[in-house]
């Protein structure tokens, strides 16, 4: 498992950890039952704050991606297909919102967008 922290990205550090671990779980690189590194260990190895790392883990737990077993550590939870689908839908939605904003700002109609999408599909 590898995590890259960028200080210049403008994205809060806890969010970078959260998204990267979440992505590793969603794409199957981390499987159900896999142990995550300890909060303190990960923080010290990445040379970031312990509190920030804890915030990322808390967020992952709240969203149901990991379980904390007292005294043992943090483990990847059984992700059900629904949850994964939901996450992917959320991602698609954000991209669509960006497309819709961009299209509005330069006067492209929905029909034109759908047409563009069809052409791209055919080309693929």
């Amino acid at each position, binding site marked *: 498992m590898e995590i890259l922290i960028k200080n210049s990205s403008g994205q809060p550090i806890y969010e970078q950890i959260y998204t990267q671990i979440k992505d590793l779980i969603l794409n199957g690189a981390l499987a159900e039952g896999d142990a995550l590194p300890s909060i*303190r260990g990960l923080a010290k190895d990445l040379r*970031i704050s312990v509190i920030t790392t804890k915030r990322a883990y808390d967020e992952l737990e709240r969203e149901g991606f990991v379980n904390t077993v007292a005294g043992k550590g943090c483990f990847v939870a059984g992700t059900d297909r629904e949850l994964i689908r939901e996450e992917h839908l959320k991602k698609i939605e954000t991209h669509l919102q960006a497309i819709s904003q961009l299209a509005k700002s330069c006067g492209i109609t929905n029909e034109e967008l759908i047409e563009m999408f069809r052409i791209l599909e055919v080309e693929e």
Partner: protein
Amino acid sequence: MNAIELKRVTKNYGAFSLKDITLSLPSGCILGLVGENGAGKSTTIRLLLNAAARDAGEITVLGRDVRKKEFRRVKEQIGVVLDEAYYPDVLSAGNVNLIMKHIYRSWQEDIFYDYLKRFALSEKKLFKEYSRGMKMKLAIAAALSHQPKLLVLDEATSGLDPVIRDEILEIFNDFTRDEDHSVLLSSHIISDLEKISDYIAYLHQGKLVFCEEKDRLLEEYGILHTTSAGLSDVPKDAIEAKRQGRYSTEVLVRRSRLSGAFDVEPANLEDIMLFMAKKGE
């Protein structure tokens, strides 16, 4: 548990006074104490080691009031490094070991020698022949060799080159892998503190400006470049401090009080401090 807790601490020195300081260092964390020369960093450190007596307020370190008799026991669990290492010139690292063995009940020779090796310090060389970096490393080795739970360092990295400073920061980072270990370090090299601290306390002219989680500070504050006309569009309560130039205006803003429409640049700790220092004047 908090390794260090100061509640409404005040100390008067006539010309200088430390006013109403409240801050805490949770166990397992690193607290960076920043501030200009004479801001009160060393005074704060002296107070919490009971090297100076406070005039008002409460101070507990590792769970004990520093003015109580039992605090002498607690002191064994504190490793202290001041900005100047202070061993007599004619001693070698080997001599230091022999002396410390009799001072600290918990002194661990093997750990001390491990650090000497790690820092490439010779056992025989006399202290007066040491470079500044070597002196500092010896003081840190000694501070770490009596199984401390708390390390207190006053300007321990100033005057050292970036490579050695980084090595030293890495040691503090490693030290706090144990959740019972905490570090308080003061420095005016803000980039060092930004690298390593969990919390930042900022002293300015004897007052505490803030004591905050470092990453929250960096997330919350940003810099907005605008014109004097554009400034009126920025919500008043989002403006923390501003720097007005002849041709442009820079504003330190709180992102949580600002809509996403503003193009806010990330601020580093130094920016935040400089803006806030100006604001107070």
